[in-house]
């Protein structure tokens, strides 16, 4: 992929803070961590759309808000259509003179519930229409806001309050669905790789049309790990291959480091067990007599996914 935006250093990031002091998020919450980087890449001339999620529950009570940009807190299935509505309204007003200046960047900040499940129709339709905004899915792999119920992004075996014996089915892969919709830009990202995430947000901002970025967002209360370990969990997910870093433009896929090196066998994957054993949601597996078989099955799924993506990259 030819990158006009690359080799970003931490020192290059602007001082601008989208998330003000006083967010109501849990200690170690990945949402404000991710939004801080988004804010630095997009700047203050932005409009954010949110649907019910932890990021809304932690915004503060009216008239206060912990976010520096204007926010539309809309209904659960509305993100795709509402962001499209704002973006087109801005276009029309800039054309008829009701507004002047540079068009603000319209972006959504929506969880995996609002993306994978209840909001999927609207997101997929906005992608198909090529509406001009960035959809961010911060994927904490469950409905954390309502007390950790399963979502379409919950991985197999994970315990949630609605899968008390562990989830039986595999998760969906919405970023891949977006790639196959041939959208202008799609990327996955990780909190443990902030420069990669920052670069991807900047790239999305530079492209007209529909862009999709999914941030892997380990959730301490949901996955049951120490609040100090959010970034470490994000790192282990990438290094074990449980979360893959890649980006795509109009259906052309590029695997990013270190996923590319891991998939090609140029670098060994971290032991999956190191990632799993930090999470209470997999404790029943770790204590079980089926532990070895379950871990083997998960590794096999990771290998299958990596092989698929290597093959997909050649298309």
């Amino acid at each position: 992929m030819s990158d006009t935006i690359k080799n970003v250093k931490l020192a290059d990031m602007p001082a601008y803070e989208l998330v003000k002091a006083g967010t109501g998020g849990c200690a170690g919450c990945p949402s404000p961590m991710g939004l801080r980087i988004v804010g630095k890449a997009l700047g203050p001339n932005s409009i954010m759309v949110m649907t019910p999620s932890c990021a809304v529950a932690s915004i503060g009570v009216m008239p206060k808000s912990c976010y520096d940009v204007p926010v539309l807190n809309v209904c659960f299935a509305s993100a795709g259509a509402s962001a499209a509505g704002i973006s087109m309204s801005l276009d029309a007003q800039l054309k008829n003179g009701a507004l002047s200046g540079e068009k603000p960047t319209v972006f959504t900040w929506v969880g995996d519930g609002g993306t994978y499940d209840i909001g999927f129709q609207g997101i997929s339709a906005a992608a198909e229409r090529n509406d001009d905004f960035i959809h961010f899915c911060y994927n904490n792999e469950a409905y954390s806001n309502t007390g950790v119920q399963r979502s379409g992004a919950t991985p197999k075996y994970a315990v949630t309050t609605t899968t008390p014996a562990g989830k039986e089915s595999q998760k969906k892969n919405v970023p891949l669905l977006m790639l196959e919709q041939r959208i202008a830009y799609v990327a996955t990202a990780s909190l443990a790789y902030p420069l990669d995430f920052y670069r991807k947000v900047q790239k999305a901002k530079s492209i007209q049309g529909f862009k999709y970025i999914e941030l892997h967002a380990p959730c301490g209360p949901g996955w049951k790990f120490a609040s100090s370990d959010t970034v470490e969990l994000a790192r282990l997910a990438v290094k074990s291959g449980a979360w893959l870093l890649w980006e795509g433009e109009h259906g052309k896929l590029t695997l990013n480091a270190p996923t590319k090196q891991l998939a090609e066998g140029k670098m060994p994957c971290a032991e999956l067990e190191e990632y799993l054993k930090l999470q209470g949601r997999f404790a029943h597996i770790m204590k079980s007599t089926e532990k070895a078989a379950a871990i083997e099955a998960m590794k096999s799924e990771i290998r299958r996914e990596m092989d698929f993506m290597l093959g997909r990259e050649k298309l």
Partner: protein
Amino acid sequence: MSKRMDTGNSACALAVKAAKVDFIAAYPITPQTSISEKLADYAAAGELSGVYLPVESEHSVMSAVAAASAAGSRTFTATSSQGLLYMHEILHYASGGRLPIVMANVNRAVCAPWCLYADHQDSVSQRDTGWLQFHCASHQEIYDTIFLAYKVAEKVKIPAMINYDGFLLSHSMLSFETLEQDLVDQFLTPYRPDWKLHPQWGGTFGNVAAAAEYSAYRNTLAEDTLKAAAVIEEEARNYQKLTGRWHGGMIDVQGPEDADVFLMSMGSMAAEMELAAEALQAMGIKADNLKVRVYRPFPAEALRQALPAHAKLLVFDRNLAYGHEGGALLMEARSALYNRDETVKIAGISLGIGGIDLPASLLTEKALALLEGLK
């Protein structure tokens, strides 16, 4: 001003174009579809001042127009029946957000079983979503009410639904007169809200509110909805001064001065009711047609003023209020007149459900039966 013979949906689309709407989102549903198609044609021909977004569901339609309205655009959409029901969640969001969206709802029965024809179950079941609700009895009234609805909605910051009967008005060909653009522009200036969802204004929209702030917002909406009645009366008069056209304020009563029997209905039935009133007059009954033009806010005060002592009010509903003997209008009329004057007698009937034809002869017959029951 030019006279034309066309459908009710064409009258609607022509008025939306003349109202210089900035943003339209649409999703097809019978019998509304031809409005969305005509607006798409206008957009493709470059005749619309605004933009047109063809979305994938009615839930997304209302999500898009609500967001575009918050961003500062004059917005429009149209729907019917199941589409209106599918929007329900966002109807509450739009009124709570004080977004002056205007929407045409081409009334159609709701399923199950499936039925494509006119009744008011779709809009009546959205009664408590906080929207203004107009009903039209003719193509001319559809055309003129679009401008009135924008004027009022933007003044009181409450969204407005314009209802008219599927097929009976949406697809029938009737003559109506359009308006010169400069007259439309005199009545309806461009939408320039005092706040927009935009970094230049700042702030958030639809944030989490504590109980005290939440109830203050919602109580204010309830009070402002009641106050909208006076604004509707005033703007209907202003429109009359400018154009000479009059379809009533909150209600329309035009019959004999000494009338003591009032036939109350809304939608296309109210046009047919004119003939029923004449038939009753020919029998020596001092009957008057009482057309409900605005269902939300309910025209309680207008009704109290229109009815003399000892009046007999016959209420004809094209909807069913399940668990109640009649329909929504009957229930509301009784509520509005309770304790006002116990000499006023009220009776009612629900009919025309699923688009069953309501000729004047049938309405006359039903009116006589209701009068008999009041004896």
